């Protein structure tokens, strides 16, 4: 009965389908970042400018030096990293939870794409948002201070790895979230405190011994310090250990998230 033989999509090589599928997810995430730029790109720039004005210019002058650098210079890498963390996390958690909530996640679930690829697509979206916001905040920082770059490779590697870790964190949160409240719980009660206590605003060497020890349990401390080391060449922690921790976190989180997806947690009845 068939008049013309239908082309067989199913015979196309899996790698090609996956590659095109990945690019499409990425394109869609990019479109989302641009479409709602007022929510994705503007707020971090405004927040960063406020931090630099208040902590850098107003209070910072009275603080003087930290680890031998101007206070404003000292906090700049931390503030950049903080916005990278929040925005990578926020991008993935709201995009993937939004897809669950609006049911359009089904567009991906019915498509011939493996779950790990879907995770990679969303994480790449988070990475892109993280990096763009990082650049925007860096640009803002340059209005207020001068930023040397001691080790460019470390700057890039640490920001990329950190962004990946927190994009995966956002994915993890979105898998379990059942409503919008549950996607703001983690950033408010875990992410923000850990970031503020993660050496963005101070060197942990200034803390009492017990607090300094406790700070070393905070993974964000390592990421912020590795990043700062890339700019200023100064760090509270061993940069090698910082990278090991960040890479390990990324690998473990990726495995956990893909396993949850394969089990259908939060996405399939």
């Amino acid at each position, binding site marked *: 009965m068939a008049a013309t033989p239908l082309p067989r*999509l*199913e015979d196309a090589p899996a790698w090609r389908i996956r*590659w095109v599928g990945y690019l499409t997810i990425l394109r869609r995430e990019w479109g989302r970042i641009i479409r709602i730029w007022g929510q994705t790109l503007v707020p971090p720039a405004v927040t960063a400018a406020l931090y630099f004005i208040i902590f850098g210019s107003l209070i910072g002058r009275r603080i003087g030096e930290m680890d031998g650098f101007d206070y404003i210079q000292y906090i700049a890498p931390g503030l950049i990293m903080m916005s990278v963390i929040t925005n990578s996390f926020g991008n993935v958690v709201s995009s993937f939870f939004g897809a669950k909530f609006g049911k359009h996640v089904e*567009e991906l679930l019915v498509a*011939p794409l493996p779950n790990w690829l879907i995770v990679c697509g969303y994480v790449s979206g988070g990475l892109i948002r993280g990096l763009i916001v990082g650049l925007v905040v860096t640009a803002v920082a340059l209005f207020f201070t001068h930023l040397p770059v001691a080790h460019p490779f470390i700057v890039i590697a640490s920001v990329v790895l950190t962004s990946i870790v927190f994009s995966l964190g956002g994915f993890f949160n979105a898998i379990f979230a059942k409503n919008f409240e549950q996607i703001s719980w983690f950033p408010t009660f875990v992410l923000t405190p850990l970031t503020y206590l993660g050496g963005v605003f101070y060197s942990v060497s200034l803390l009492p011994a017990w607090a300094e020890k406790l700070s070393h349990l905070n993974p964000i401390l390592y990421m912020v310090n590795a990043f700062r080391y890339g700019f200023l060449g100064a760090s509270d922690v061993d940069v090698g250990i910082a990278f090991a921790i960040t890479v390990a976190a990324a690998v473990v989180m990726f495995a956990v998230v893909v396993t949850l997806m394969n089990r259908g947690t939060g996405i399939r009845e």
Partner: protein
Amino acid sequence: MQALSIRGLAKTYSNGVQALSGIDLEVPEGEFFALLGPNGAGKTTAIGIITSLVTKSAGSVAVFGHDIDRELERAKSCIGLVPQEINFNMFEKVFTIVVNQAGFYGIPRRAAVERAEECLRQLQLWEKRDAIARTLSGGMKRRLMIARALVHRPRLLILDEPTAGVDIEIRRSMWVFLREINARGTTIILTTHYLEEAENLCRQVAIIDRGRIIENDRMSNVVRKLNQETFVLNLRDAASAPPDLPGYAARLLDDHTLEVDVSKDQGLNDIFARLSAQRVEVLSMRNKVNRLEELFMRLVEAPAPVRAGVA
């Protein structure tokens, strides 16, 4: 080649509801197949398992020979799904939705753009290509889901209640369109709770109720079964062979019990006249329950479909 082959498919949801209790289904390539049943019968659950939106509890599913446990990606490549509920991103543009779906199926950008245009034109949505999906009317939203399902040229198109809540004119034009697609070689499975829809479109029908397939036959046979009643007659004297009743299917259940199928446009007088002539005396008569008819009484009682969304 079977477009779809289902064996012993069962689903119990985490809340304990058993939505499917072991169904078998074969849909040959090229078929226009209806899965007909009342609300809550398990239609959407079955479609969900086939398209991997729902996990199965037991059984197997193969799409064009690709088992979903072993060759899931290939199986998925063969299917286009029009879900029961709207599931596109309301904030995206019509064109973007369709092009991206082609991309998710691995169709490179340039071809995806061409196919998206083709599908949107076919479904009279081309003028709306730059509209935000949220602004479409109900009928257009349904058509957008059909365009999206066709963009990768699936060999099997599955539509879950595609015309629920759509007004009669749009429903009829959708029927015309689906017939065309089917005639060009796409296998179609649609679920519906309108007998009329299944009757108009489909050659083969499986009737599902409370998670079981209770009938799976050519549409014409089902319609015939629906239009006939069976009467059970108690006879005074033992009979050794069914009496001669031309035009009626009659069987002896035992020597005192005669069963006669009567279609709704035939009368009963003729039966009694013939039986009297053959000196067969009827003591009593009862109407045998017609399972199908019973089911359709419930379909009729189901709440009337919402008439909403004019194009």
